[in-house]
């Protein structure tokens, strides 16, 4: 147990250092950027005098080390700077968009894991559909998330009319708190109709985001499953008279899941990029909308905030994955 704790401390320490270095990199980028933040804040019509005064207010003429220190200590207290576009604190802006994205991204992650398992099992079994599924997977994994998204809208919304294609909910009186996740808030407020409707809105965008990553994870899972199935310990277990489902669940899966878990962690980066894009297609009021609005006007603080947020999310998920691996397979801690 002690070894596990040391491993945990090491991984968390590494994660904190990575996030700190990301913050330093973003600061360096801001310094190197051709755009004067004071000018950006005041708009193109500002006089030279006003810009000089604004530079003083923002402390832009201080030594870079001092500015960096201020930036980092600001981040620790949740200060992500002020958006050039909305003129509000970026943290406050993001807080309005984050719950929708968290709900979508976590649903997509669950979908990805379920789909990956389905792909791995269905293509390793011998049945006539395996070839068709494999071909579909090859094509699907090569498709950009935005194409999957619009194809899903055409099929499930326009042709079949099964599922909604835009926004998070049909209800104008949907509860707005306390978590900001409509599926959860619906249950908390006793509004099961809201929860059900929120689920229906989640299905298509989450599918579009999760398909590509699911194929990648499914491939890894399938190859490690088939590798472990012919291993010595599996044969021993069968020889002892243990039935196949139990061999699979108790012996094989535990060993095969490691590589697939690592791959899931790595694919989260791809899923974040997918979230930003797919939110545009489905009119999802999340971080992707905020990013898309910030890009054309070069709103650096806003985009830096999004980058930090997603960077922290990615590092956190991969740290959890590493720790889970170590718990599942104590050899990794060595």
């Amino acid at each position, binding site marked *: 147990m002690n070894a596990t704790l040391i491993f945990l401390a090491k991984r968390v320490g590494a994660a904190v250092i990575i996030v700190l270095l990301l913050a330093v990199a973003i600061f360096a980028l801001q310094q190197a950027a051709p755009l004067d933040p004071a000018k950006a804040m005041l708009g193109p019509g500002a006089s030279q005098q006003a810009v000089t005064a604004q530079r003083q207010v923002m402390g832009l003429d201080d030594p870079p080390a001092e500015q960096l220190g201020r930036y980092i200590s600001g981040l620790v207290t949740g200060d992500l700077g002020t958006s050039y576009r909305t003129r509000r604190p970026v943290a406050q802006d993001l807080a309005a968009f984050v719950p929708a994205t968290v709900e979508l991204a976590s649903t997509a992650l669950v979908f990805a894991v379920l789909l990956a398992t389905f792909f791995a099992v269905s293509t390793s079994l011998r049945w006539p559909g395996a070839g068709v599924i494999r071909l579909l997977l090859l094509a699907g994994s090569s498709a950009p998330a935005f194409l999957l998204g619009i*194809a899903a809208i055409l099929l499930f919304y326009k042709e079949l009319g099964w599922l909604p294609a835009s926004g998070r909910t049909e209800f104008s009186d949907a509860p707005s708190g306390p978590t900001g996740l409509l599926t959860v808030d619906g249950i908390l407020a006793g509004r099961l109709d809201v929860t059900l409707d929120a689920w229906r809105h989640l299905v298509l965008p989450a599918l579009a985001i999760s398909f590509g990553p699911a194929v990648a994870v499914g491939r890894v899972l399938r190859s490690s499953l088939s590798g472990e199935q012919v291993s010595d310990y599996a044969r021993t277990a069968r020889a002892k008279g243990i039935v196949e489902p139990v061999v699979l669940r108790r012996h094989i899966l535990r060993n095969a899941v490691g590589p697939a878990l690592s791959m899931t962690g790595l694919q989260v980066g791809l899923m974040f990029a997918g979230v930003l894009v797919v939110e545009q297609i489905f009119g999802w009021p999340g971080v992707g909308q905020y990013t898309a609005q910030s890009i054309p006007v070069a709103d650096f603080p806003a985009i830096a905030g*999004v980058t930090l947020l997603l960077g922290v999310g990615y590092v956190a998920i991969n740290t959890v994955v590493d720790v889970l691996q170590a718990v599942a397979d104590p050899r990794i801690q060595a």
Partner: protein
Amino acid sequence: MALGRRSAWAGASLLVIVTLVALLAPVISPHDPLTPAGAPLQAPGSAGFALGTDSIGRDVLSRVLAGIRLSWFAALAVIASGLVIGGVVGVVAGAAGGWVDTVLMRVTDLFLALPAPVLAIAVVAGLGPGLVNTLIAVSIVWWPFYARIIRGEIRTLRARPHVETARLSGVSSVRVAWRHLLPGAVPAVVVTASLDVGNLVITLAGLSFLGLGQPAPAAELGADTARNLSYLLQQWWIPVMPGIGVLVLSVVGNIAGDSVRTLLERR
């Protein structure tokens, strides 16, 4: 997927075919991609417009071809820069070893510990939007992947007898790296790079979709889909066709990558 040698050659030659199509796009396009050529909103299969026309009557096929040209060369450019930067870093780290290796690989790990597309968006925000800046940004976040692989290859090669012999006979370390280590890393790098083309095409299309590319009239696969989303339910071909262009490029990249691997690994 086990491919025969012949089909592997066919797969690898797809790279040449797509490159030719990209090169010749201006010649084989039936119309100018930037100017209206007929009535707007014509469905695919209309006379002279195999993939239909867009909202102001521009030929969708010509725009997709122009977009394919741009995407393909953009992806190749990023891979080339990744090979050069990653190659230098990987060879230096692998050949030098010691603290040089440690420092360079820590920097590399930092990049790899963060999602590349997200980093690229931040770099573009710093540099300002535009196609060239986007390519610079993606190149900045893409090389560590190659540095890792090349460094790994170099480390294995360094322990081989022929390298040791060269070093013992007094060959300079630069010459050892250039003549004896680098050539040995080429096959693994070629396989990695060809499998990477599809990924890059998709990533670049995603960034273009988010508005990190050329401004409006230019034909770009991701941006053409994003700008025409409002036509999806009535004139589906306008946003869908550019997406299919991305799909085709990425399928070609994946098939060709698999084929190159088959060809190189069977030696």
